């Protein structure tokens, strides 16, 4: 015992940590953008009228949900290169793995959102003379997007955490730079503590955002339950958790 933490070396290498955090964000955002597109395509595939397409999409989702990301990253980075000759950088491999896996998770969200729009609405749209594409674009999609955005935001928080696994193949993201910093300064405790705190703070903010969006995007009697983000954040993170449970005792 008797250890005195010294965070001075951490602040001195703040540039390194910020660089790693930036890389983590770029990885997460690029992967998320690809995953959103892929997720929508897979969701469409799952709802396709062609049985083969439906089977393929569903099989893909099941396979992706069963595969551990960590193993997948190694598999893509090391074995795909040696098997097919395609050489990916750690960044490319990371984006590919995160996007293909999260695409499957997002497909489930998108499918749920699209299917929750009742068929009557589409029938009404057709009755009003809208084409299939118009009714999808103007009636189904705007409502489905509202439903899908909060869980998608939550998925982003999960994806942000999972970028940490790309460190294993050498991408210079937050974990990697923290390891570099700690081996330079022999201050692993300090570096890893700051690293952990950064993750926790980002994830908390993103999930608070998701909770706010859930309220803000919900329509009730044709009126949005619009509230300020600050108010929602306070309720979600500060007030609500500590308020008494609703159950009468």
């Amino acid at each position, binding site marked *: *015992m008797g*250890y005195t*933490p010294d965070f001075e070396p951490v602040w001195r290498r703040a540039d390194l940590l910020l660089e790693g955090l930036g890389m983590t964000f770029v990885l997460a955002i690029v992967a998320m953008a690809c995953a959103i597109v892929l997720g929508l395509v897979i969701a469409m595939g799952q709802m396709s009228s062609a049985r083969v397409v439906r089977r393929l999409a569903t099989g893909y989702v099941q*396979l992706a949900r*069963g*595969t*551990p*990301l*960590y*193993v*997948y990253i*190694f*598999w893509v980075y*090391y*074995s*795909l290169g*040696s*098997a097919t000759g395609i050489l990916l950088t750690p960044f490319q491999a990371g984006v590919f793995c995160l996007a293909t896996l999260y695409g499957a998770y997002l497909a489930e969200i998108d499918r749920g959102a699209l299917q929750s729009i009742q068929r009557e609405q589409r029938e009404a749209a057709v009755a009003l003379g809208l084409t299939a594409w118009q009714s999808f674009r103007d009636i189904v999609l705007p409502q489905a997007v509202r439903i899908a955005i909060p869980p998608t935001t939550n998925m982003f*928080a999960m994806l942000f*955490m*999972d970028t*940490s*696994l790309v*460190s*294993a193949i050498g991408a210079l993201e*937050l*974990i990697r730079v*923290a*390891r570099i910093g*700690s081996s330079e300064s022999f201050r*692993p*405790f*300090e*570096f*890893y*503590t700051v*690293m*952990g705190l950064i*993750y*926790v*703070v*980002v*994830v*908390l903010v993103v*999930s608070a955002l998701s909770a706010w969006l859930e309220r803000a995007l919900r329509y009730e009697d044709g009126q949005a339950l619009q509230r300020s983000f600050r108010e929602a954040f306070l309720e979600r*993170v500060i007030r609500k*958790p*500590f308020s*008494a*449970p*609703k*159950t*009468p*005792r």
Partner: protein
Amino acid sequence: MLEFQLETVVASGPRIMTALALTIYISTVSMLSGLAVGLVVSLLRRSGFQPFRLLAVTYISIFRGLPLIAFLIWLYFGVTVAFNIQLSPITAGIVVMTIQSSAYLAEIYRSGMEAIPHTQRQAAVALGLSPVRVFTDVQFPQAVRIVLPAIGNEYIGLVKGSALVSVLGVAELMRTSQQLVQFYQLPFEFFTTAAVLYVAVGVGLGHLFRILEKRIRY
């Protein structure tokens, strides 16, 4: 076209199976202790004493927002050095996975309890049941059915997550596969085998939990 060198994989079969057993052991121990710790956390979360609630909420927020690998590295390479603690890599892995799963399970328990209408509790009290029997005979049997799928998912998640314990040098399935890859220079064969085994365990557990769900349905 490459050929899949199955003989080499089969020859390493015993080693891979031992590693798989360790993977299942680590995730099962973490799951069981996570179930217990998670229950304590969720009870604190429902407590009438504010500091307890504050503690539980902080615990849940922190450990749900910390990536498993960051937590492992922090504990094994950071905390142990700073406080001069002796911790075997397996113990460190189990401790980290227990804490993380307990944070998730505490939320799962809560969702299960909240899914049961208050009126049930009131009716049970009105019938003269003691608080303990209200819980064991009315709330618990219903909550179990509601949360069982989520618990199954958490278990599968732990099996997948246990691959990360390899960064501490525990010779579980992932680490062993990495060693075999290095030895034989056959990344495709061994990583594919590992992936297939993880998926197989996940599918198997999924089936097990579906059977369990059917069993306890009245």
